[in-house]
């Protein structure tokens, strides 16, 4: 040990160093740059040099109805989709939490939506949703129900997009909860049986509290991604019809790469980042409560 060289003595700095430098260069600096740009009025189209504008970009964005609508939509989309996924996903996990033939094949099927390319998923659902040739309107007509415009009508576009998110990500919650259920110890169940608890009582008082931390973690992971949903919305509607499916991420993309209004785009991004951060902190706190 005494002979150990420079490399070994400083292993704990040298080993993470390359990764750290990479993250610093390609992530930390760019994010700081975005933060900096958000305090300017910079646009790429005007050709003017960047000028410090204080909170100007933030104030402009706050007064923009498209921004406020996008904030509301982002929350609506995230809360609606993730709640549905949590309830459905947990229910599916509880149904499947037993041994049966073909369980592995079933798990494979659950994995399919998770690994499917979101852009392609969006396109497949666009075919489903197509008002004139789509399968879903056919199903509605079979049951004698009125046809829907799905993603082509501003009143139904958000729920239709949420349905795609729910289809794609419910299995993720199921798999996480299934893994959590598999790790539960048997003892509480045995003593509950001795005490003559009904299956509903066992579920409410034993299973649910024990898997709650797992479910909440799954919800955080999912919500953080749902807040940033981009691929599916961009591929299916591009934020339309009109602006009716524009979420914060889509709006930020349009401000940066369609309008080249870097100052305001950056302030949208800073805002989105804080929402994501606050949200994860909040849910982590709630999760701690359950663990105590």
């Amino acid at each position: 040990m005494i002979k150990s060289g420079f490399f070994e003595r400083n292993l704990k700095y040298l080993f993470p160093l390359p990764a750290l430098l990479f993250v610093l260069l390609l992530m930390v600096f760019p994010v700081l740059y975005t933060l900096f740009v958000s305090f300017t009025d910079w646009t790429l189209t005007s050709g003017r040099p960047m000028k410090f504008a204080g909170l100007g970009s933030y104030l402009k964005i706050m007064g923009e109805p498209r921004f406020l609508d996008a904030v509301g939509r982002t929350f609506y989309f995230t809360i609606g989709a993730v709640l549905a996924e949590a309830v459905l996903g947990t229910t599916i996990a509880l149904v499947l939490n037993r041994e049966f033939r073909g369980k592995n094949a079933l798990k494979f099927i659950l994995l399919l939506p998770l690994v499917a390319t979101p852009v392609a998923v969006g396109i497949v659902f666009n075919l489903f949703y197509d008002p004139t040739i789509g399968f879903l309107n056919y199903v509605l007509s079979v049951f004698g129900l009125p046809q829907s415009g799905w993603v082509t009508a501003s009143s139904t576009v958000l729920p239709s997009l949420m349905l795609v998110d729910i289809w794609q990500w419910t299995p993720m919650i199921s798999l996480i909860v299934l893994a959590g259920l598999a790790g539960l110890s048997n003892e509480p169940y045995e003593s509950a049986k001795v005490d003559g608890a009904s299956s509903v009582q066992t579920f409410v008082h034993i299973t649910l509290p024990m898997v709650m931390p797992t479910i909440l973690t799954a919800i955080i992971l999912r919500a953080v991604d749902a807040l940033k949903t981009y691929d599916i919305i961009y591929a299916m509607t591009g934020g339309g019809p009109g602006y009716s499916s524009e979420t914060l991420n889509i709006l930020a993309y349009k401000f940066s790469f369609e309008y080249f209004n870097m100052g305001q785009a950056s302030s949208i991004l800073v805002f989105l980042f804080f929402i994501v951060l606050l949200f994860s902190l909040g849910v982590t706190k709630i999760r701690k409560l359950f663990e105590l």
Partner: protein
Amino acid sequence: MKNSLKFRIGFPLLVLLIVVPMIFPFIWMFMSAFKTQVDIISWPPKFLFSPTLVNFNKVFNEQNFLLYLKNSVIVGVAAVFVSLLLGLPAAYSIARFKQKRLSMMILVARLMPGISFLMPWYIVFSRLGLMDSYTALILSHILIALPVVVWIMSSYFESVPMEMEESAMVDGATQQRAFVAIILPLSVPGIVTATTLSFIFSWNNFMFSQVLSMQKTRTLPIAVYNFMSYAEVDWGGVMAAAVAIMTPAIILTMVFQKYVVKGLTMGAVKG
């Protein structure tokens, strides 16, 4: 109750109720990929039709999909390879020296909205003349793959008992030698998990390539998207393109099912 008649009929029905909605979009996609445009737009939707390869022919021979496939593979493989190179030692260090702050940083990298780095990259890469280059795309995809590698591997390394490298170090090996010669070979299952997942995430990424790639380095997700945004949608062709992009990810998942499940559920369960 388990073997009651009600359960023996009810349970398979319940499973069917879960499986059918999950798998139907895939079935519809595959069917449509083999349909002619006439069959696709026919009403009511057709379940029986004579299959055609016209759409795949169009995708691969007229639309240059082999080039985009090659681009996706190059970018994915290079990004995953570099991420393993950078991420494995970092993950080992996080696990062994309990570097909480470092692992927090990786978590934050997962939280950040992608566009918040994309905008600065766009400016820097265009000044450096790196737009539409593999370099820019691979760099951006490393940022997708690296957090996955570190996230999965640091908890994997924690599960490998410390005695493993201690016994080697007693015999005179350095810790870095023990890491390469003993810990890494023991961690193959974890590395397979990290590799598969990070490759799939890179494969599926849309936003980074949308901004950083053009004609030359365009990856599959962008090609599929562009295919759709023509004035009149050629549904058969688009579905064939969707099949082409999803098949590799599905095959990877089939081969490495156990690992993919582990990777996706890891962290959430352990807490």
